């Protein structure tokens, strides 16, 4: 299953909730959730922990738009919109943690 999160983990609980409930699978960070891919934030330890259970992706255009395409947490893969489409196609279901 693909989990899609679009909010910064430093301001909202959506990513926390996703990581609490979801059992694993693919996790895609889009929009403001791409800040969760940055190394050095307060959330990094939780993200590193999540990487043990999830394959984590961040949307490149959203990273670039926010100036945070550099210094990503090791193990997080970067995808473009085509990669986003592939992730949706590859998983039987997807859930947006709005």
């Amino acid at each position: 299953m693909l989990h899609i999160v679009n909010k910064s983990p430093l301001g909202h609980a959506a990513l926390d909730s996703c990581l609490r409930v979801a059992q694993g699978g693919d996790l895609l960070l889009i929009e403001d959730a791409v800040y969760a891919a940055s190394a050095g934030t307060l959330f990094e330890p939780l993200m590193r922990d999540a990487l043990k259970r999830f394959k984590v992706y961040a949307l490149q255009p959203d990273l670039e738009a926010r100036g945070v395409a550099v210094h990503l947490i090791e193990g997080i893969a970067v995808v473009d919109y085509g990669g986003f489409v592939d992730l949706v196609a590859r998983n039987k279901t997807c859930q947006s943690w709005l």
Partner: protein
Amino acid sequence: MKFGIVVNEGPYQHQASDSAYLFCKAALAQGHEIFRVFFYHDGVNNASRLTEPPQDDRNIVARWSRLAEEQGIDLVVCVAAALRRGIKDENLAPGFRISGLGQLVEAGIQADRLVTFGD
């Protein structure tokens, strides 16, 4: 593969509509089919033809209309959500149609994947 798309937020206020549009374009470029884009909650405001963004900004509404025209995408606006927010046939942008929530459920049933963009 057939994708259904749900857009829950209005244009310019939230990135949801932009993300949904770029997702649709990428899916079409890969040869996938967009079964329907369903606009719900404040997402119905994406269908207002009265929208006039500044010239140096993207025209979100016109972009959806163009996608509908060029690719034959079905853009459906929820009637109950639309009436609440003053979106009617009189001010509906080209390519959009107003219909019931059943269209969303049908997209969930017919499409291989349903992707929601919202807040």
